[in-house]
């Protein structure tokens, strides 16, 4: 008999970043009782780290902007692999989502006429990113946090309890989604019934029953060695969805941000915001050359400056000049930096130079990029107002994610499950534009909350899916395994216990080296072999101590998720024999229009035949799926000459 405490709510949101909090606000405002669960403290989710801004075509700085232009930029950035409907909804709704934040107390930087200021960013035709210096994510998450508090204050006035309708379970980790059959029986496992996990502080288990669960768990970057992502990014939501029978798409597309810190080693990977370039910073190699002019790909030739002089004029006069190539989409810039370093033209610590010091007065730099100034000074002893920074690519964002319905954010194939934010797939295609994540969080977070509330409301009282005792016991046993790990106990296994930290480091190294920014078939096959081996060894990941706030135990449990998600990335990347956006194949360097129509869909391989296969660790199966054709009026937003670069002839004629 399980001793896990159960609670019942209408909607459970897993994740308290931008997507999760926006979803929770919506669900609560639609009258549902909503529980939010997050691994860190409230207000510390990854969203807090976002720097540059939030993309929305408000047209405050350039009136030429509108949703159609934003839509076009987004599709180009994603090399037309985006789900067009998501890109459309995103572009249409982003301005309302930003304005709404002001009514909740957000204080963005202002234009001269008192509107929200907007800045330039890679791939965006007009200045489009609403921002607060370079700490936009902090503003976003704090505003949503404070909106949640204000709703709790309303509830307190009415019910005497702040948490009667909206409660944040901070420092709780979900390890399983729970399902139930139509008749409340779990074996059939048709629909979502709740979540299971542990409280980090006490190590105690919990289960929350709810007909709707929204995944808003963010990304997967902790599977790579050099990353801008925090410990939270172990791909939990991606793995939870897979294990619950949902599918993932576009997992081969991982964004390597071109500018991460490279020195000193302990900060390697920490992000240097793209605003540095948006505000005038330039990239140079060891010869002092602005090498990006040598890397403008054909599809973008007409849109970018051909000379430094033209690029420089653009900052003042964007209508008569083209933008500098430092502002190409991230995949292009990251590849270019990689090539320069490989060609021996890198900086002393294996990056290239990013310089604002010769481009802007010191005072402007401190005002526009305060946290970059602070970060370099404190962590690298570099004064960015006086000398260049050294930067190189860092794993930053995963375009792939849960396969969802574009309008409702409902996960395909699992009734009651929804996904929004970085954990959802489709919106960004093969490459995300900077600033399009924060807006994505709000647009689809709201939609997920809305439809999760509707779904929950269709189960009034009795008839709700019920979590079975057997499922709870299985989830408990799985979570406790690291304490009685097979290794180290001669009765169970000859081999020694494995250190979860060491396993994690090996995984990161393998993904970084073999499925990183530039990929090759044989290397990815090697990666898959290593993943299999790591999966076997991870069964023996053991921990000491007790369950109270024990990071070794937490990591041992996270390994399951990282291994599963890494396998998706490696398998899909091996399968896609072309280069597009965040997926670059050395052995297939060209973009292939025939691949444009195809999504690779990952599912859990239910009937694994591997001897001794561990059903809990699972394995992944790939499927090719054709994308729905882009709606005519949206296609009409592009010139024919541009479309032929992306679409096949049949697509263009039909």
């Amino acid at each position: 008999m399980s001793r896990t405490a159960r609670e019942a709510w209408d909607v459970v949101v897993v994740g308290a970043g931008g997507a999760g909090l926006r979803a929770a606000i919506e669900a609560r405002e639609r009258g549902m009782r909503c529980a939010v669960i997050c691994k860190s403290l409230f207000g510390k989710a990854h969203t807090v780290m976002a720097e540059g801004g939030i993309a929305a075509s408000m047209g405050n700085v350039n009136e030429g902007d509108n949703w159609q232009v934003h839509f076009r930029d987004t599709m180009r950035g994603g090399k037309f692999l985006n789900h067009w409907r998501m890109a459309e909804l995103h572009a249409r709704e982003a301005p309302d989502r930003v304005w709404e934040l002001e009514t909740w107390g957000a204080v963005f930087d202002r234009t001269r006429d008192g509107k929200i200021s907007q800045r330039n960013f890679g791939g965006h035709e007009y200045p489009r990113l609403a921002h607060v210096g370079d700490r936009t994510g902090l503003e976003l998450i704090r505003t949503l946090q404070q909106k949640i508090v204000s709703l709790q204050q309303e509830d307190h006035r009415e019910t005497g309890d702040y948490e009667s309708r909206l409660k944040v379970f901070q420092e709780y980790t979900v390890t399983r989604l729970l399902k139930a059959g139509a008749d409340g029986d779990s074996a059939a496992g048709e629909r979502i019934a709740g979540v299971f996990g542990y409280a980090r502080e006490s190590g105690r288990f919990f289960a929350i029953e709810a007909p709707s669960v929204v995944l808003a768990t963010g990304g997967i970057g902790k599977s790579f060695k050099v990353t801008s992502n925090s410990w939270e990014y172990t791909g939990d939501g991606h793995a939870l969805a897979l294990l619950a029978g949902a599918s993932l798409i576009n997992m081969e597309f991982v964004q390597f941000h071109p500018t991460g810190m490279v020195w000193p080693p302990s900060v390697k990977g920490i992000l240097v915001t793209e605003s540095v370039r948006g505000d005038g910073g330039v990239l140079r190699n060891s010869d002092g050359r602005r090498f990006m002019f040598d890397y403008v790909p054909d599809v973008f030739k007409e849109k970018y400056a051909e000379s430094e002089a033209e690029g420089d004029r653009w900052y003042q006069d964007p209508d008569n000049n083209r933008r500098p190539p430092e502002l190409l989409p991230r995949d292009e810039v990251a590849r270019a930096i990689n090539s320069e370093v490989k060609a021996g033209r890198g900086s002393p610590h294996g990056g290239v130079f990013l310089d604002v010091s010769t481009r802007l007065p010191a005072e402007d730099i401190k005002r526009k990029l305060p946290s970059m100034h602070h970060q370099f000074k404190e962590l690298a002893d570099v004064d960015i107002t006086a000398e260049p920074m050294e930067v190189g690519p860092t794993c930053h964002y995963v375009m792939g994610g849960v396969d969802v319905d574009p309008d409702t954010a409902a996960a395909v194939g699992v009734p009651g499950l929804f996904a929004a934010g970085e954990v959802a797939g489709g919106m960004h295609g093969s490459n995300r534009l900077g600033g399009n994540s924060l807006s994505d969080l709000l647009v689809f977070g709201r939609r997920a909350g809305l439809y999760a509330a509707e779904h929950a409301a269709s189960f009034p009282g009795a008839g709700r899916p019920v979590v079975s005792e057997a499922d709870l016991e299985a989830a408990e046993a799985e979570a406790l395994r690291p304490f009685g790990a097979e290794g180290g106990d001669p009765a169970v296994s000859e081999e020694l216990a494995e250190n979860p930290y060491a396993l994690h480091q090996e995984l990161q190294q393998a993904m970084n080296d073999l499925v990183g920014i530039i990929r090759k078939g044989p290397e990815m096959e090697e990666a898959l072999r290593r993943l299999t081996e790591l999966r076997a060894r991870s069964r023996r990941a053991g921990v000491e101590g007790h369950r109270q706030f024990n990071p070794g135990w937490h990591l041992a449990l996270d390994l399951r998720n990282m291994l599963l998600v890494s396998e998706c990335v490696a398998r899909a990347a091996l399968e896609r024999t072309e280069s597009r956006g965040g997926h670059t194949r050395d052995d297939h360097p060209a973009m292939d229009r025939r691949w444009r129509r195809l999504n690779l869909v990952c599912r859990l391989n239910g009937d694994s035949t591997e001897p001794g296969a561990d059903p809990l660790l699972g394995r992944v199966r790939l499927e090719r799926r054709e994308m729905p054709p882009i709606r005519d009026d949206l296609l009409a937003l592009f010139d024919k000459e541009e479309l032929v670069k992306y679409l096949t002839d049949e697509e263009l004629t039909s």
Partner: protein
Amino acid sequence: MSYDAHFKVWRGDADGGSLVDYTVTVNEGEVVLDIIHRLQATEAADLAVRWNCKAGKCGSCSAEINGRPRLMCMTRMSLLDPAEPVVVTPMRAFPVVRDLVTDVSFNYAKAREVPSFVPPAGVGPGEYRMQQEDVGRSQEFRKCIECFLCQNTCHVVRDHEENKPVFAGPRFLMRVAELDMHPLDGAAEAGIDRKRGAQEDHGLGYCNITKCCTEVCPEHIKITDNALIPLKERAVDRKYDPLVWLGSKIRRRV
């Protein structure tokens, strides 16, 4: 350029604990949090610590290093004397959960007690107009990463558990100031007096402007000078001369 450092890390839980000695490698450029992580990966897998961003942006990794409240991720090892032991202890003003992790729920409770932003009546989404110079102050306060180091340091609560129920602490008094200085906050029209609230509900009177909070703020926010003192002045204005207050409010609006 590596060397072996002597660390003394507090290990324990609510029932008690003690400093534990470790000898651990330090490499060039590392911060205290790197060393804590190295301990986890090598000899203390269950050492409890909070962190997220490792870049001074999330405010998770607060602790006391050689008795000084600091972010572990922004404390360079090169600032510390390699000959001396490095003593890392949890924040003192909050109950210990385990090792370096403390129970900071006090802060979340205080956050709930500050009346929220009141959207101005009749101004719809997209219609907000504010000048940069008028939002600068609120923006300075909104740089707060909620590391709670100021809350941990302020002597009103650091060793005075009894003051906790009546004192919101510098971070949340600053929140009151932030909202009070927001050019479009409609609290007054809605009958909420933020200044009086600061005095009567949040314990502004306990603050005797020692500036200890300002000194530890990793965001370099001038909490005392820019938030607390002006709030005190305004509260006084409000108490003795409502007309002065009204005038200042009207002036700010135009």
